[in-house]
């Protein structure tokens, strides 16, 4: 990696490197000239901090790198560093993320534009290293922007975009980049690393403005309020999250101009949807087996498509509903659970159903729980889900929620 990063300083062009998702985000921290980074070990996210530590020890990244004594402190330290004007990076996984939950709660409330990486991991108990999305999803109501990526290139690019969006004064909300544990955090792929100069053009310095905690700006941050003001303060955050949609669009457009990589619709990716009868919807690295299965089924004349959601918060409900309304049936693959939720499905399925409710065209929605605890989502799993969708599209009654790939 040292070699990969050294080139950045000297070359005016991007260069290729074979790196993992975690390493890609560490490189993004260097490119973004992050000021304060805090680490605490938990698999699988901690690989990013191992790469950061190497960058620091080799003198390639000038930052305060603090190994905290818990995730709670880890997130509190960077929260305060950000309030004092520093660009910060943090991250965690699974129950580590949950241990930090109090800090995660106040971070968006304080309008702290922290960027964090969640290496998605199953929550204890029993202990399991593999991916589930429940950790990151736990903050979905709090004002965190949440984006799922599915490859190392996208991880790097999204980290740079996340800083630009989070630190935009119209937003000033934290952003968590969710990376599937192992499948992305630990898997290497070819990544184009942009030169520092491009990043400088794309990412303005962090300016906390009149919210900076400094003797020249003697403000009182987060004074005690009660029913007389809290509702208005909550509304400010609501408006900021709404504005984030516009800022995300602008950031992707600018990113495409400077870096030459155009992600199209920033919020969700469509795969073979143009003529599809039915589509699957999911987040993260399960896109790989889904896309392989779709190619096979297409060869058999079955018109299946895929919608991969990137930004879960903000959630583009109207746009997504309009897209999904084009199909005869929609299947949501949740790599998470939500016990006792409507139709006992997953979080994503519940959100998509809610998004569809006011829409004009509401295709039948089937929910699938799949790939928990890092279990592989296989091509036959995807084929089974697609077959159920095709039957639903033909008017046949199907169960509303199905656990797929589970021992009978």
């Amino acid at each position, binding site marked *: 990696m040292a070699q990969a990063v050294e080139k950045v300083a000297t070359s005016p062009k991007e260069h290729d490197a074979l790196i993992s998702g975690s390493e890609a985000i560490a490189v993004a921290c260097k490119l973004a*000239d992050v*000021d*304060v980074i805090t680490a605490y070990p938990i698999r699988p996210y901690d690989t990013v901090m191992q790469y950061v530590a190497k960058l620091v020890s080799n003198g390639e990244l*000038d*930052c*305060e790198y*603090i190994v*905290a*004594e*818990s995730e*709670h*402190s880890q997130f*509190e*330290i*960077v*929260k*305060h*560093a*950000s*309030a*004092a*004007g*520093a660009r910060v990076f943090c991250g965690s996984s699974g129950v580590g993320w949950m241990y930090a939950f*109090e*800090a995660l709660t*106040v971070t968006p409330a304080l309008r702290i534009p922290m960027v964090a990486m969640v290496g998605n991991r199953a929550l204890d108990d029993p202990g399991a290293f593999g991916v589930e999305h429940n950790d990151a999803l736990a903050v979905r109501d709090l004002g965190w922007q949440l984006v799922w990526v599915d490859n190392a290139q996208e991880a790097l690019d999204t980290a740079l975009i996340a800083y630009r969006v989070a630190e935009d004064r119209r937003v000033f909300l934290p952003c968590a980049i969710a990376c599937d544990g192992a499948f992305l955090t630990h898997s290497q792929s070819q990544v184009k690393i942009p030169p520092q100069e491009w990043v400088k053009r794309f990412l303005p*310095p962090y300016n906390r403005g009149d919210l900076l*905690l*400094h*003797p020249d*700006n*003697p*403000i*009182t*941050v*987060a*004074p*005690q*309020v009660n029913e*007389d*003001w809290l509702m208005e303060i909550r509304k400010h955050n609501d408006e900021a999250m709404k504005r984030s949609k516009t800022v995300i669009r602008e950031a992707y457009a600018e990113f495409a101009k400077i870096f030459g990589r155009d992600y199209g619709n920033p919020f969700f990716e469509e795969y073979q949807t143009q003529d599809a009868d039915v589509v699957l919807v999911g987040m993260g690295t399960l896109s790989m087996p889904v896309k392989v299965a779709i190619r096979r089924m297409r060869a058999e004349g079955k018109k299946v498509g895929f919608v991969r959601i990137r930004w879960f918060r903000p959630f583009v409900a109207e746009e997504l509903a309009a897209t999904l309304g084009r199909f005869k049936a929609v299947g949501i693959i949740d790599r998470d659970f939500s016990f006792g939720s409507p139709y006992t499905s997953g979080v994503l399925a519940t959100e998509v159903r809610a998004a569809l409710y006011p829409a004009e065209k509401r295709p039948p929605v089937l929910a699938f729980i799949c790939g928990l605890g890092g279990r592989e989502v296989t091509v036959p799993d995807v084929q089974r889900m697609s077959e159920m969708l095709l039957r639903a599209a033909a008017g046949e009654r199907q169960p509303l929620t199905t656990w797929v790939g589970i021992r009978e």
Partner: protein
Amino acid sequence: MADAIETTLPTQQLEAMKGVKKVPLEEFFTSGHRTCQGCESALVMKLMVKAAGPRTIVLGSTGCMYVANTTYYSTSWVVPWMHTQLGSSGSAGMGTAAALKVLMRKGKMKEEPINVIAFCGDGGGADMGLSAISAALTHPQYNFLILLYDNESYANTDIQLSGLTPYGAHTTFSPPGKAKRIMHRRWKKNVAGMLAAGHPECRYVATVDASYAVEMMNRVRKALTIGGPTFIHSLDPCPKGWDYDPMLSHELGELAVDAGVWPLYEVENGLLKLYGRTKQIAEKRARRKPVRDFLLKQGRFAHFTDDDIDYFQAKIDEMWTKWLIPGVIPFHTELDRDQPPA
């Protein structure tokens, strides 16, 4: 070798005030708060930031000194102030100090020594926040002071017992009843001694008592000037929690020291120094007052029998006669006993 120790930013050189007439008149903690009448912790806030001066950032963890001092639109803080979570004073101090250090190093902020003070109550500091404070004190490259204002209960939430509530005290979580007169049987943690002994790189740890205001402010100044992470533990009489007439706050602060319940000391670069009344007691120039005088002025000990008072007295006597370092280090060594007679 040069690489072995990370550089620290210069600190403000705050000189000790020689007498009350040398104390600056300027206030940085002013009107706008709504602490109780006789609140000693509010005085601690006022003296703390008066000693530190205007180029100071204060971080306050949840507790009385958050809730009562920073009502929306009527903040009492003249210097920049930010709330931090109950267990986060250590992290708040360190995060802020780290930001100042890196931003000044990278030229993103004008270079100047800025004081960073993070305060916590006894619940936030000695219970929930102990782990973060301990971690923070192991980072000598950052300059900040953690001040624990100890009113000996979770006073803001309704007087519940904390790890620093004294033995036997009546709190809403330890009410004396018909079956159990003494509900709270744990002895108060020795926080300053524990932090001084456990963090050899921490350059300054002190106990203070705002009844001795100038001494207290000078210790804040020393903690900020000496550099690195430092810790001060202040004992604050609390009319509501200790249940006494608010006019007695100052007197109770003195009595705590006079009775030997609250020893005043500082550990500066590893050197332990007793000071004030405590020093006089240790040097036998003053007599310790009976704890009875201290306890019975407080309603929270009103249920104590003579036996309870005797037990309390015996524990305080033990602290002064048996501890390796009286009032600071609570064990004795076999070594002393094993020495052959001279």
